């Protein structure tokens, strides 16, 4: 056995006797191998197998390295004050994810959901590795599936689908071997486009159909079949990670049930206030797959009283997490088909109210532009507009202080309440609201 050791190592080796020498040499060899592998990045440790385990009575459990894993996650898009969604935070020299990852770990977060990877693969890999290697936080990586492309996502056109498919497969090929990857989410609320509610699209065949209900079904069939095709092809190149279908509410899943056998789970965006209602049982009856609550939560601004209300946010989030835990596989209370959630979101985003007005990105806007009666404490706000898009952060951003070069993070009450909840999900914590 030829070893290439430095002088100090050689000196120590000569002092040891036979067996000890061999053992020590082996250890050093292993250490060197690992160090080289980490430094080079070319030979990272083997990817961890992530899969869904089906238990009795239609219960589902997410498994990571053969161990049950409940996703205690958060949606992550750390846009600093004064920037908008076009900001490339992956390239931020101050590495905001390092500050955030530390605080997330302290809270108990084990997963972040990122809607789509940045453009530079090396920087994306660096973020995934930093979060995983330093804090044990895994990444759910998503893809918009061209939802925001101008003028609309042409799911009814093959050339559009082919282009999106290539992007998705490129993403999987690039990151599938990262140990920090947990799963893939395809789309977000793209199903609403099938109902013409947002980003409407069509093709000649659909346009020629006079019955609007059939048109809706045709669009849904095209879209969900495309997602299923992607899921199948992802599995062919990456057998180690589940593929989730991103979906707004449960709308359209009756169609997905017919055409999505290759999808492993559903990642639902749900804003129903303090309760998810019968979501879990309803999913079982419609599309019997595991569910990740991939976007849910509450804002912390009382639009009626015109003031921040951290109690309100903490109240809703605690209630939501309690229901998630009631419905995971090992709970006796619920449907057993929930694998966890990624709450919306880690930091406030100050650009959201007026995304085209750079001046407003410097202002923490308090004007609401949508309504949701489920968040009933401030539903009496003018025009019932009670949802404040810029106030969903579990941590607030400071516009006066910096920490390690980025806007200082100020944990809100929800941070502490959910941290305590995760420590002991059985314990009842009485909140003010």
């Amino acid at each position, binding site marked *: 056995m030829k070893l290439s050791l430095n002088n100090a190592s050689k000196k120590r080796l000569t002092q040891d006797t036979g067996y000890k020498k061999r053992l020590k040499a082996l250890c050093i060899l292993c250490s060197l191998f690992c160090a080289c592998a980490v430094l080079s990045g070319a030979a990272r440790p083997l990817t961890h197998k992530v899969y869904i385990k089906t238990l009795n009575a239609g219960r589902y459990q997410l498994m990571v390295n053969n161990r049950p894993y409940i996703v205690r996650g958060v949606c992550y898009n750390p846009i600093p004050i004064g920037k908008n969604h076009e900001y490339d935070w992956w390239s931020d020299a101050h590495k905001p994810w390092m500050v955030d990852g530390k605080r997330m770990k302290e809270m108990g977060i084990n997963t972040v959901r990122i809607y789509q990877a940045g453009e530079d693969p090396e920087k994306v890999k660096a973020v995934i590795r930093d979060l995983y290697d330093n804090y044990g936080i895994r990444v759910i990586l998503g893809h918009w599936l061209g939802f925001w492309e101008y003028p609309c996502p042409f799911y009814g056109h093959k050339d559009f689908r082919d282009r999106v498919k290539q992007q998705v497969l490129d993403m999987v090929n690039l990151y599938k071997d990262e140990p920090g990857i947990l799963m893939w989410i395809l789309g977000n609320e793209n199903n609403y486009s099938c109902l013409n509610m947002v980003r409407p699209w069509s093709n000649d065949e659909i346009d020629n159909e006079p019955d*609007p209900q059939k048109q809706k079904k045709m669009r849904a069939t095209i879209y969900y079949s495309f997602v299923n095709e992607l899921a199948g092809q992802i599995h062919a190149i990456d057998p180690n990670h589940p593929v989730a279908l991103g979906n707004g509410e449960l709308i359209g899943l009756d169609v997905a049930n017919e055409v999505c056998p290759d999808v492993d789970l559903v990642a639902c965006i749900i804003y129903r*206030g303090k309760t998810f*209602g*019968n979501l879990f049982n*309803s999913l079982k009856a419609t599309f019997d797959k595991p569910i990740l609550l991939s976007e849910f939560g509450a804002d912390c601004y009382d639009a009626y009283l015109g003031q921040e209300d951290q109690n309100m946010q903490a109240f809703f989030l605690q209630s939501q997490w309690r229901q998630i835990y009631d419905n995971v596989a090992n709970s006796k209370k619920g449907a057993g088909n929930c694998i966890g959630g990624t709450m919306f979101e880690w930091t406030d985003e100050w650009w959201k109210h007026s995304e085209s007005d750079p001046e407003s990105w410097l202002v923490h806007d308090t004007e609401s532009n949508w309504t949701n*009666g*489920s968040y*009933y404490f401030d*539903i009496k706000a003018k025009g019932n507009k009670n949802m404040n898009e810029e106030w969903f952060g579990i941590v607030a951003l400071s516009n006066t202080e910096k920490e390690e070069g980025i806007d200082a993070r100020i944990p809100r009450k929800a941070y502490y309440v959910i941290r305590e909840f995760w420590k002991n999900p059985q314990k009842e914590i009485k909140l003010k609201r």
Partner: protein
Amino acid sequence: MKRIIVMSLLMMLSVSWVSAQETASSPAKEFVVFTDKNARDNHFIPSGWMGDYGDLKLNDQAMDNPHTGTTSLEFTYTAKKSQGSGWAGVYWQNPANNWGSKKGGFDLTGMTKLTFWARGAKGGETIQKFVIGGIKGTYSDSSTIEFGPVELTDTWKQYTVNLAGKDLSYISGGFGWVTTADLNPEGCTFYVDDIKFEADPTMKPQVRQPESMPFYVYSDRSSIKNHFIPSGWMGDYGDIKYEGSSKEDPYLGDTCIKVTYSGKISQGARWAGIYWQNPANNWGSVDAGYDLSKATKLTFWARGAKGGERIEEFKVGGIMGEFSDSDVASVGPVILNKEWTQYSIDLKGKDMSYIIGGFCWATNIDVNPEGATFYLDEIKFE
């Protein structure tokens, strides 16, 4: 001997003192809302006139056949829609005219029922609901309990509202009633007497029972079978004209619903719709869902005035609030025929155990550029 007499007197005094103490500390068995005008134990005043208050007349000293005492309360409702509401009612408040802006009310913890006596002048008068609590404001009542609809008889009858298990720690609206012009097209006269809360230990908290099928949202204008109120006007509500008593070729019975959507974009929303709610205007703030677990579908009949009107969605449930509907189901878009056509919303597998929003339609200007007029009838859960 003197000592014995003194001892006896002391003992008698002592016994009478103890019994007075017991009376003072033992919980009250009843708490009067209203018995006779000027009765000393009246605690609430029938001051809260609502809706078409111009249609109401109150004789608070009706001598004609009171239930007990010398008088009862006589209400006359003309159904003339003086204020354009189509409904009217009266709340008994404390203090008078307190709509939650003043501190008043009573802690009625321990009371388990409210009883009252009522009769109609002719019999057949329909009261949409009687209500206890429910006043909202800075000083909101701690509960809302509703009872009804009730079809009165021409003789006195006692009604009991179960309050067991309800939070009665603050009640400023001790009693109230509401009825509508649709339920009483010719108006009505009725009498109320001896309204009181009682502490009856035999009362147990009411368990919500699944409703029997069929369960109507709308049968006919004056039908006591109607269960939800078309109160949830949404979007461009100024574009909507609603007639719950159209006689233009109803599918069944005397009347049907006629909806005219002008498409004028009055509120700038570009869409409009109506939710049928229980109670009226309940967007999930009042715990009043029906248990419709036995329903497997909702059916309704619809037709367009011209044919071709497009309704984007007909829906059941879906109201989200502090008390959310347990599920949602919908059908649409639907292009209406000129002839009556039955539509169905499949509820199999749905959780219909708690429904506030019994029915809903919504459409928009983009699919009805000229607006739309359409008719609905026989909306029911089966």
